[in-house]
């Protein structure tokens, strides 16, 4: 049974309709995006299901998941905070920002809070070097940028998530 296809029949069809039928595999990226929105990460089952929809092997799907840092193959918090610690950001104190943020949350970079709400990760340049400290958040609704951040700001943001149902 193809859960993804069954649950999102229309959405999958809309995505497929954008590509010529003999080049279905081009729909891989948006389908992965759909799967990640649904499950928070791309499970092995999702890879199989997408492969089935596109007539490609699960291995081919996996290769793309592995290639892009924005696709995840492991479950994590509902919100993934990705802090840039590349060189320009580091010059503007991003490492200290990351350290304090993690201390506030009681986790190490790469870990998820006990309530499963927040994961903090380090990433390379997010193309907002002049507005550092900067992080992006992968939320169930999509990707949101937060620039010129302080730890207080960030914690305030996290608290709004905590209070959401």
């Amino acid at each position, binding site marked *: 049974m193809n859960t993804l296809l069954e649950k999102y029949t229309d959405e999958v069809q809309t995505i497929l309709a954008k590509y010529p039928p003999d080049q279905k595999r081009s729909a891989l990226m948006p389908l992965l995006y759909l799967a990640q929105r649904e499950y928070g990460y791309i499970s092995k089952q999702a890879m199989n299901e997408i492969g089935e929809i596109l007539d490609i*092997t699960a*291995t081919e799907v996996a290769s793309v998941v592995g290639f892009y840092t924005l696709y995840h193959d492991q479950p994590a918090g509902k919100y993934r905070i990705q802090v840039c610690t590349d060189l320009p950001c580091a010059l503007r104190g991003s490492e200290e920002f990351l350290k304090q943020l993690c201390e506030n949350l009681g986790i190490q970079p790469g870990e998820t809070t006990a309530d499963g709400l927040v994961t903090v990760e380090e990433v390379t340049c997010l193309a907002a070097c002049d507005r550092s400290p900067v992080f992006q958040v992968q939320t169930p609704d999509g990707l949101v940028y937060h620039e010129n951040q302080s730890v207080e700001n960030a914690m305030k943001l996290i608290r709004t998530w905590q209070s959401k149902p």
Partner: protein
Amino acid sequence: MAKLVTLTIDGITVQVPPGTNVVDAAKKAGIDIPVFCYHPKMEPVGMCRMCLVEIGRPVVDRATGELVRADDGSVKIQFSPKLETACTTPVSEGMVVINTSQKVKDGREDILEFLLTSHPLDCPVCDKGGECPLQNLTMEFGSGQSRYIYDEKMHSAKHVPLGDLIYLDRERCIQCARCVRFQDQIVDDPVIGFYNRGRALEIVTYSEPGFDSIFSGNTTDICPVGALTTADFRFGARPWELNAAASICTQCPVGCNLTINVRREAISQGRMAIKRIMPRQNEWVNEIWICDKGRFGYHYVESEERLDQPLVRKDGKLTPVSWDEAINLVSMRFKQAGSNLLTLVSGRLSNEDLYNIRKLTDSLNGKSALYTQMGGGDVVAQVGMSTGSNLANLGKGDVILVIATDLHQEAPIWWLRVKQATERGAQLIVANARSTRLDRYAKYPIRYAYGEQNNLIAALVQLIDPQKFVDAKAIKHLSEQSIIKDTAEALKAAQNLVIFFGNEGSGVADSQVLAQTCAILLATTNHAGKPNNGLIPVWQRANDQGAWDMGWRPPTDLSTSIKEANALYIVACDPAGDDPRLSLTPDFLVVQDLYLTPTAKLADVVLPALPFTEREGSLTSGERRVQRYYPAIPGRTGALADFAIAAQIAKACGITLEERSAAKVMDAIARENADYAAISYTELANVEEQWPIIGRADLYYGGTSYENKQGLGMQLQNAVQKGEPFQISLPELVEQSGEGLLAVPITRLYDRGNTLIPSQLLRTHLVSTVMWINAKEAKQQGVEEHDVVQIECGETSALVTVELEDAVPDGVVLVPRSVGIPISEPCRVRLHITERV
């Protein structure tokens, strides 16, 4: 032919076709440019940078378009400031390539240093050590000292079973993607891939089961390091201890060229032992590839169960006796039986065996019969592949028709060669009652009902030449279909036409007719007897064609022939194993085989034979290429080659047959059989230089497939080519009839034949006693997936497990051959559920 491009490499002038890359151009001039990711059978990708060279090009005056010359009149050459990758750079007129400068050597040293930053350098325990491109190139160009600290190396998993045949060592992988590209581009099984990027990159498989491809072993040949190794050879021996014997695969009618690596070893009690099977280059047959059945399926030859002395039944028990005693008994009884002797053989035997056994039988006035489920070998002798044919020559303008066979499962390398022909532009027609993997590349996939295969070909003939099969009612509904009309047009327009036919959906008689109709199609379209044209039979056994050529024919009714015989001589086949109900109770039964098969257990005398690895012989492939194999290890004491056993029996009967060597038997064949007149063991050993040049000191270029130094074989002339009249008359067409569920035996690659079961490695791959049915039909028949049902065909029956499979047509169940289900040709069946899980 396009104008050649002239360039110089290290001062040597080379002329090559435009589009050639610098690595290949250098190879043609005898110069080796080191590579890792480039492989001559695949498109260059420029991933590893090992092939860096200095490249200069003539300076052209932009205003005049003239070449700029120095004062001494020589053309001025402009070198690019940086090294360039030779694999991705096509040659151009006047190009100057430098492969030996210090700059080039420094470049190589640097690349190697990068590659080795996290390489484990565990060459002493690495299977590839001794034949490893990375090791060799490091010795030649590496710095000899590492600037990296051991503790800073990245470590990763070293024993990752990608499937049960191939192991991955993640630390050793240098990320050249040869394996990934081979699986994707060459065999279209993209079941291994790259995961992650940069230093974190690793090879993964997500298929179920892992690395699910019947060509997987080839990746271990082209992997330039010890990252991919086979479960068979892993930690088995060091490459430099191995001797190499040339051989031919005996698992299917393709006849892939092999090298058998052997060594004398303590763990085999000081005997010579086979350590691995490797491909041997033959660009006319298998290029440099083999399938996994050929590579891993050989273990039966070393099975513990092998017989090593003759047995004679005494007081009801098979008892070891001397050869003399056994031969005397057999010859006496055979002489007594005379015309009541029936000899039954299979295409597992070599031409020499088949010839001698036939001679023996004929001299005694006995009857001879070929144990097979398919006919048409005599037709193939008339219109088979003509001399000078190579499937690799097929391309644009040519047509290939594949009917009643699943090439991927029955003859994997032919499947590959056909697929490649379509990539070069050949048009493919795939006709079968169900979809098979070849459909993917077919321009005309045609479906018919099982039993209609002959009528389909007749319909095509009729559309092309309305004078033939006039008014045949049986074909009308076929010739009206537009796809079949289009196919007929394509066949008419074909420059070259190759037809593969199998016996899926036919019995012996029906497949004989199929061969005939296909031959008529070849003749009607004027393709018979020309190079790169012809009929290729997809036999079940490697040398069925040789058997037909040596005069063997399938009997009209095997069980009657057996019943009528007083003495039976059964060689290299196991009718009792295939059909336990077959009554094998002649007065005297002699079985000649490798082991005590179910048939041998019934015998009065059992004669132990040698397998192909321990003797010489020749086989005739489906493309009618005669090829010879050499002994890889000494024959086990006590057993003899089949042709020699036949000669000994003959001698005791007062008949003289050649027994000294297979080569001498071949000389006798050549004297007697006009088709084989030009064949001799010396001719079969002829070689010529093949492209790509592989297997030399530069293992990095082609991989560890062996160069062919022992013979490319010879393709026989067919009757039409020899100018003999085409003697095939139009067969009678029969309308499809019959009611009820039809069971159709199909051939699976990993069957349960006697020559595959002993391979422990392939155990989990072997097909089991199942029947495939589609969901709708299953419902109709009242069966469910996993049910165990009794499948009844006339008198015989068997227990099988139900598996659902969409591709099976309505009204049909498919059963695998060679698993002990006694259904050898299509028959109407009834199902009874005996167990529901």
